[in-house]
């Protein structure tokens, strides 16, 4: 399997993915089932070594799409393959190649960063000592003081927690990194540091990176290609320069986004 991975030109391929959620709500005696079409027929190809941005407003389906790639959610229709392996049929092999960072840094909040990283690394079979050394190295580069590694995680700022979440993902040396809004809620400095780090990871680790965001500047700065998602559908998928040229009337990505989704992004943010 490992040698196959190296021969694959595509790191990720989605073929006609659909996902509909049904939620049941009880209103007195009535049972009301609402259906949400989260992802509607998405096709995607990501060559290895690329940074692909998924840009879209809240609720457009970014996290749902990423969960399906991460083997956490099963699509209703369509297939997803990672380095040529189907995520459902070769779940274990795919899991070994990927890792994911989510919006909310999900940790055992009373445990220290060290303990959390030890747990995560252990699950991937990384020996504890090596994991600790690696984690310290990664966090140092992210501008994280060593002393912060030995206090409960709940006492760290969101930015610091997010950095540890990235370190956790990197510890397992994934060849495909799925970053779900990794910089949302970070201050500008931390955001910058995380972005620099993403670029560095790509350069040093031969990793393919898929990053979702609703930050235009971030998408423009990081991504080789940007797919704009709206209500579960891709409305564009191109390089940033091409998107701006074609849709943004050379006034930037924001303008392109507005034209493509027919909505004002700033207002969208406020209403949610």
């Amino acid at each position, binding site marked *: 399997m490992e040698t196959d991975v190296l021969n694959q030109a595509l790191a990720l391929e989605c073929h006609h993915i659909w*996902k509909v*959620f*049904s*939620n049941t709500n009880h209103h007195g005696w009535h049972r009301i089932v609402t259906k949400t079409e989260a992802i509607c027929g998405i096709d995607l190809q990501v060559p290895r070594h690329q940074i692909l941005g998924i840009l879209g407003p809240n609720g457009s389906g970014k996290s*749902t799409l990423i*969960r399906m790639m*991460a*083997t*956490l*959610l*099963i699509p209703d229709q369509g297939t997803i393959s990672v380095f040529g392996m189907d995520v459902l049929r070769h779940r*274990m*092999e795919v*899991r*070994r190649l*990927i*890792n*994911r960072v*989510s919006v*909310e840094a*999900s*940790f*055992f*909040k*009373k*445990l220290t960063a060290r*303990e959390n990283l*030890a*747990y*995560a*690394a*252990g*699950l*991937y*079979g*990384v*020996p*504890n000592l090596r994991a600790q050394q690696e984690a310290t190295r990664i966090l140092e580069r992210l501008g994280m003081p060593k002393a912060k590694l030995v206090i*409960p995680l709940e006492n760290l700022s969101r930015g610091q927690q997010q950095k540890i979440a990235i370190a*956790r993902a990197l510890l397992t040396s994934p060849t495909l990194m799925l970053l779900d809004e990794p910089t949302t809620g970070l201050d500008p400095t931390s955001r910058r540091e995380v972005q620099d780090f993403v670029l560095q990871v790509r350069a040093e680790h031969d990793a393919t990176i898929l990053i979702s965001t609703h930050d235009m500047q971030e998408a423009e700065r990081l991504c080789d290609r940007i797919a704009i998602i709206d209500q579960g559908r891709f409305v564009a998928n191109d390089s940033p320069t091409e998107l701006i040229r074609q849709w943004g009337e050379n006034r930037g990505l924001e303008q392109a986004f507005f034209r493509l989704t027919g909505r004002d992004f700033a207002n969208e943010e406020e209403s949610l």
Partner: protein
Amino acid sequence: MIAMEREARALGSIVRRNFHLIRRYLGWEVVFLFYNIVNTLTIGLIGLSLPPSQRATTVVYLAIGALLWNFLSILFQEIANAVSWERWEGTIEYSFMAPIHRLTYLFGVCLYAVLYGLLRTMVVLLAIMFFFHVSIRHADWMGALLVLMGSVLPFIGLGLMGAVLPLISTERGAQATQIIQGVLLLVSGVYYPVSVLPMWLRWFSYASPATYTLEASRSAILQGRSIGSVAGISLELLLSGFILVPLGLWIFTSAERWAMHRGTLKRNG
């Protein structure tokens, strides 16, 4: 070989993680333990209110119930709550995304539950021995231990089935595991012979593995029955474990698949 090593590391890291968590919630651990000890003593004291001739046996009868229930309920609770806990912390997607067999994950949870349950029950046992100076002649301790070992497996099976509920519905599932635990306490004859239960409840006691565990360990300790006579029951318990554990695992993996379809693995929604 490498794969085995990887799974073993994962197993170790799950057990270690839980012990780290105990350390962080040490205050609560002490409180729970205190309550456990007081609860057991209170129940044991009921025995002292009886005529002297019945005291010793009644105290021991009750203490066996309290200790075994202590151990088995911890076992059930720790396993059944493993998923709720991880979901509450938001780590469940990370734990379930790791490239390990679900069996390894669940085995780690169970291994921890057994170690932790034994540890806590030992402390309560020491407290009881310190408080009540009753001695039991002819007690067959080895037999009692054998019974206890036999009942670990079926309770793990029950715990695995309980763990499924929070996977299906976050809050209702956690509530349901509490109810199951309550019913087990009622029907298993923890502090009284099941013969005092009304007939319709007796059917439930036949289904609870704890009923057999309690009956057999009491006959081993109080009546000093030989190992031979309880060996049969231990074997039966063990066999029921061989059915309940795979059944629990199967239910668990099916529920996980269901959750992956419905999108209920994530913390909110």
